[in-house]
């Protein structure tokens, strides 16, 4: 493969970061032009959670850092320095603040996605970050980015590499969105049956359908509190800490090996519900996709009987329940909720037949979520394996046209 080594500055039409609009949070609005901050930029992935918006006047003043389609974004300061992704079309119109830099590829020579993959390749990223200086605070300057040298094959090859990696990333992203859909369906179904009681026709004086009764959360579930000493752990045993759990999303896609674990942890099994008890308003609740160990700041919830799983899952992801946990939590700086209080939470308990039917429906959603998590782990592993090899030319690709020709010739 023919590679040229060139400076990013010579392959781009714009490199530049933005400013933080004066007035801080007061200038943020519910809609308008997106203001992209470092918390929106992850590796390969743009995260909409926490995206803020600014009004026309502020946006007009920041015209200089207007985002175009397919701009590459890279974080240039702070803990998340080096994180890099492509701006999604639906975040535009947009501006960036001073922690995020725009790299606008010259499309006649550089595919923007190729640049994004190039900068996310671990060796390349290390090389770039080694140059970040600035005393106590690391920072990538415009100068560093401009003069950073990258290897570029011809555009047609770049496009081919981007297609291979991009199809994997699109599927990863799609699986995440599908899981959000499944989660919303499970929530909507629980609310329909257990909050609105809509499918039922006859009610008793206590506002419950006939055959139901009020119970408490500890009548359907318990906390599985089995401590394990780190020295007894197989070092490939998965470990989930609060840092791995996303806020307001049951999909637990991240974990690490427990080899770095030094203190006692709780054991959990695949299918258990993990409930982050520190600052419960973050709503870190999810279903364990594997067996493993977790932080002692996570409650491992199990249904008392397998058939109770659906009810339990539906209940603990309701916002009203999270609010209850928040309002009953103790502690000054780091409020933690307490199972003693949570256990008392009132839950409607249906007759067995309804409970079983509901459990099957919920379990179907949850099984799909877990299956997608495993698929994503495999997709990510594939991408990470291919990325350096495709970029170095170790795995050779042919330009798209050649392949088309081959297909035509073959056909």
């Amino acid at each position, binding site marked *: 493969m023919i590679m040229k080594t060139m400076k990013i500055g010579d392959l781009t039409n714009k490199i530049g970061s933005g400013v933080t609009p004066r007035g*801080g*949070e007061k200038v943020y609005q519910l809609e308008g032009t997106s203001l992209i901050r470092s918390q929106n930029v992850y590796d390969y992935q743009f995260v909409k959670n926490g995206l803020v918006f600014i009004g026309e006047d502020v946006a007009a003043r920041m015209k200089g850092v207007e985002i175009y389609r397919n701009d590459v974004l890279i974080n240039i300061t702070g803990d998340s320095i080096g994180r890099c992704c492509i701006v999604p079309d639906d975040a535009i119109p947009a501006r960036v603040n001073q922690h995020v830099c725009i790299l606008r590829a010259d499309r006649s020579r550089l595919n923007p996605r190729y640049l994004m993959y190039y900068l996310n390749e671990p060796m390349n990223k290390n090389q770039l970050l080694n140059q970040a200086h600035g005393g106590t605070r690391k920072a990538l300057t415009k100068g560093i980015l401009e003069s950073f040298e990258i290897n570029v094959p011809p555009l047609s090859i770049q496009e081919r590499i981007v*297609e*291979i990696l991009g*199809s*994997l990333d*699109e*599927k990863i992203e*799609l*699986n995440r*969105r*599908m899981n959000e*859909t*499944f989660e*919303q*369906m499970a929530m*909507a*179904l629980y*609310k*329909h049956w257990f909050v*609105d009681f*809509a499918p039922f026709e006859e009610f008793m004086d206590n506002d419950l359908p006939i055959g139901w009764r009020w119970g408490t959360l500890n009548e359907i579930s318990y906390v599985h509190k089995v401590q394990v000493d780190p020295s007894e752990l197989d070092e490939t045993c998965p470990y989930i800490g609060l840092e791995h759990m996303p806020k307001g999303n049951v999909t637990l896609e991240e974990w690490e090996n427990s080899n770095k674990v030094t203190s006692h942890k709780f054991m959990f099994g695949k299918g258990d519900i993990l409930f982050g008890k520190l600052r419960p308003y973050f709503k870190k609740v999810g279903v364990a996709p594997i067996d493993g160990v977790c932080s002692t700041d996570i409650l491992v919830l199990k249904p008392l009987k397998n058939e109770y799983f659906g009810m339990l899952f539906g209940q603990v992801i309701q*916002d*009203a329940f999270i*609010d*209850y946990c*928040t*309002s*009953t*939590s*103790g*502690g*000054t*700086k780091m409020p933690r909720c307490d199972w003693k*209080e949570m256990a008392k939470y009132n839950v409607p308990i249906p007759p067995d037949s309804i409970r079983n039917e509901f459990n099957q429906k919920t379990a179907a959603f949850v099984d799909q979520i877990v299956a997608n998590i495993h698929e994503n782990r495999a*997709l990510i592993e*594939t991408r990470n394996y*291919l990325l350096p090899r495709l970029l170095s030319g170790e*795995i050779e*690709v*042919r330009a798209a046209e050649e*392949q088309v020709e081959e297909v035509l010739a073959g056909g």
Partner: protein
Amino acid sequence: MASAKADINFEKELFEAANRMRATVAPADYKHIVLPLIFLRYLSLRYDKRRKELEVQLSDPNSPMYFSDEEIVREILEDRDQYIAERVYVLPEEAHWSYIVKNAKQPNIKEILDNAMKLIEAENDDLVGVLPRIYRSTNLPIENLASLIEIFSRDTFSSSSDDAVDVLGRVFEYFIGNFASSEGSRGGQFFTPSSIVELLVAMLEPESGTFLDPACGSGGMFVQSQRYSKNKYALSFYGQESVDLTVRLGKMNVLMHGINADIRLGDSLLNDQYKDQQFDFVIANPPFNQKLWGAEKIQKNDPRLITDYDKAVTDGNANYMWMQHFLYHLKDGGTAGFVMANGAMTTNNSGEKDVRQKLVDEGYIDCVVQLPEKLFFTTGIPCCLFFLSKNRDGEKGYRARKNEMLFIDARKKGVMVSRKQRVLTQEDIAEIAAAYHTFRSVNGKFESVEGFFKVATIEEIQGNDYKLTPGIYVGTEETEIDDVPFEEKMTELMCRLQEQFIESNRLQERITRNLEALIS
């Protein structure tokens, strides 16, 4: 509105100007240099005003004080009693602001200032121990001192300006608050932000009677309470504070606001200056979670302890010793309101929980308010308010409620005024105070508001292991109902899922094709 804003800008600008002269002096020390200058300015102002008043009366032929003899006029103008009678302090010439301004650029200005303080104290008995002599020992460059003197010599502070006295009082208070926000905290002591003081005062309604703050700092609670009281002299203030320089600032602060307060020096817990005295109100913001405070020095028979010594005192945390101190100093019929660290509501430590249990069982706790986070300048620490009362038997016009407690969860109140700081609005304060007043009132029709406040019985509290977190009792607010009907919501989700399935199939084919091409 516009003028209020302009005022704040004026105070802010002044503070920034003064702070620019700080040089290498630590922020915590700098206030002891700056604030006495403001006080000196104030003393001169009051003196000049009185003198001008006298001059007018003495030269007006229609006035009963009219004298044509210049000798007599001068004598009367120099007569100390003419000033003391009007609660104005007598200023020797070398302590007067005009003298200080004239000598501001002299190399011995530090000595002049210390000397001025000495002369004032010598002339006025009740200022003894108030004014510091620190200028000679400070390493603040004399040019900076000269600039400070210049800043406080502005026209706004001259006797020709009608409200100069009020302005100086406000400036003094503003400076105290801003120094607090710039110097950080020490040992759990936080300057009480005005919205918390306002809330405490609004809930307690101290209109008349005696008032103790045993952790009074620079006297912020007194200034605020006096604003609340309709009759300026209906409240008598008593305070105690353990840091000498802070006691001095507190005395200056109350004087500048025209309040007569008795502020004494000493550690309230270990060296109580008000032994055997009881008050109508106790209001305080004691240091949070003080450790190693000297519990071993408390006597076994200390009258403040409400349970056995071993259960009532711990060196691990002074919170509950403070509470026993407050309770002890309450008269029958009196009420205490104070700020507390959140941990006190739930702690299970011995020496703390037993006291809480006793306070609940004996019916002393009237109300607990959980406040939102970020109300303090220098810390995001969340805190709460406790109200202890010896007025719960249905006397003095209040409702009998010994078996009940009011819980208020105010965590959702307040607005952010900067990225780091929240304040309670006037409406929030009125709403919270109204809930408490209704709870106490004989005729109050009390209805709990889900997620905001609720009355709980002692039995309920006992059933919850004596935890006092309002959230446990008030429940959660009705969450907004997602009003999309189920069928519609589910149909929308299913459509989305169908599209995602189709896209998923397409992507799977694409990925398979791409990967196969790599190995073919």
